[in-house]
């Protein structure tokens, strides 16, 4: 999450209370990532093994293949490890 999107102390709920449900969706954890999975769609066979293995549900189905939701992907690399055709490369974040 960019610094601009993050709230300051004046705006956050008092005492670290989370006053409403389903806020995990708003908490974008993608910036924890050091290595970023990049999918080569030419190699991808759409087997969905990465979609099954992703512990954070950050692989999404897209036109018979897959794409990564970088808002939540923490860059664990399980998708790249499991891909049977080595279509996913882990690239260091800029």
């Amino acid at each position: 999450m960019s610094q601009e999107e993050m709230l300051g102390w004046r705006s956050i709920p008092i005492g670290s209370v989370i006053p409403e449900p389903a806020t995990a969706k708003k908490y974008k954890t993608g910036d924890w990532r050091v290595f970023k999975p990049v999918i080569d769609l030419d190699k991808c066979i759409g087997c969905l093994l990465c979609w099954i293995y992703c512990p954070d549900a950050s692989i999404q189905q897209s036109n018979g293949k897959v794409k990564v939701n970088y808002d939540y992907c923490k860059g664990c690399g399980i998708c790249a490890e499991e891909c049977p055709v080595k279509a996913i490369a882990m690239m260091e974040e800029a």
Partner: protein
Amino acid sequence: MEVKPMKVIGLSGDQVAAYAAKQCRVDVVSAYPITPQTIIVEEYSNYVANGEVDTEFICVESEHSAMSACIGASLTGARVFTATSSQGLALMHEMLYIASGLRCPIVMCVVNRALSAPINIHCDHSDMMGSRDCGWIQIFAENAQEVYDWVIQAFKLAEDIDVLLPVAVNLDGFTISHALEDIRVLEDDVVGKFLPERRTVYKLDPDDPILVGPLVLPDYYFEFKVQQEEAMKKAAEKIREVAREYYGYSNREYGPIDSFNVDDANTALVGMGSTAGMLRAVARKLKERGRRVAVIKPWLYRPFPKEDFVKLVKDMESIIVLDRTLSFGAPVGPLCSDVIATLYESGRCDIKVANAIYGLGGRDLTPVEAENLFMKAVKMAEEKRVIRRVEFVGVRE
């Protein structure tokens, strides 16, 4: 406002703490007995047993659990009171930070007692000073009357929506806790008027769920801590409003800091708790002999009343700060450290400051020793130098 003649009752400092909590219509008390605090919860459990109060008294197996239960209760919107001393406060230590971090306006009497080892049951301030940075507002009372008045004011301050911080009302073990005094008490309905029902921003309520106590990582933790610090700053302002309103009901004047003879002095002793009363008596005697000496007694230790302090010492040339605790390996004791930092920040580095560590493990500071300290301060002013930065008063070599 016309203040009616007040009822006077004879109670010890501990008893009056319980009496004040009763008048504050506390919803929950959870506590564990420890000398010299025990009488407070003993007295309060009597009120519960006799049906004099509508309070849930939660018996627990330790102070850690006592504070945990207080936090849980406070989060539901209840008004919560507890009390402890020494090892009990030390055992609560980690929960103290949770109470302040979750912004629970709990009021706790800390009956100051030395920490082990060697084991000792008598007064010094090492218990509270050990938890100095726990995010609680900290008040030190001089006598049982002040304990009564501060417990009632503490709830008002703690529960203020702009503050929402727990408050520790400190009273010296035995010297205040077990000494019987004539206390002027307010009528129950007057306390009720001064301290209405607690209001909340958030509370645990099954019909309107919230999440309390989430994991907060480097991206937000710091912001929550600054939020607490801002609440502390607010408390420093609000305590004046609270004291002003309380004066209207009680005719007794409180505030962040108390003083004696500052307008007619060039040297002062600074001390907290019961010691201040004796210092004032000695200062009065010295004043009659023509000495220009003052006593400054912070009621409020956290937040430290910086601005008020600087105003009070504007004419001072020397100060001796009395710390009833020893911060091992530190340049000076904690109160003296705050005083020096405050003076430095306000550009008053010209004032000569020395530190007296006294009264550890309940050793009395005698009037003769106090007089010697005043005369040392006078000499420091005359000679424009600090004489022995840190002195251990009355210790045998």
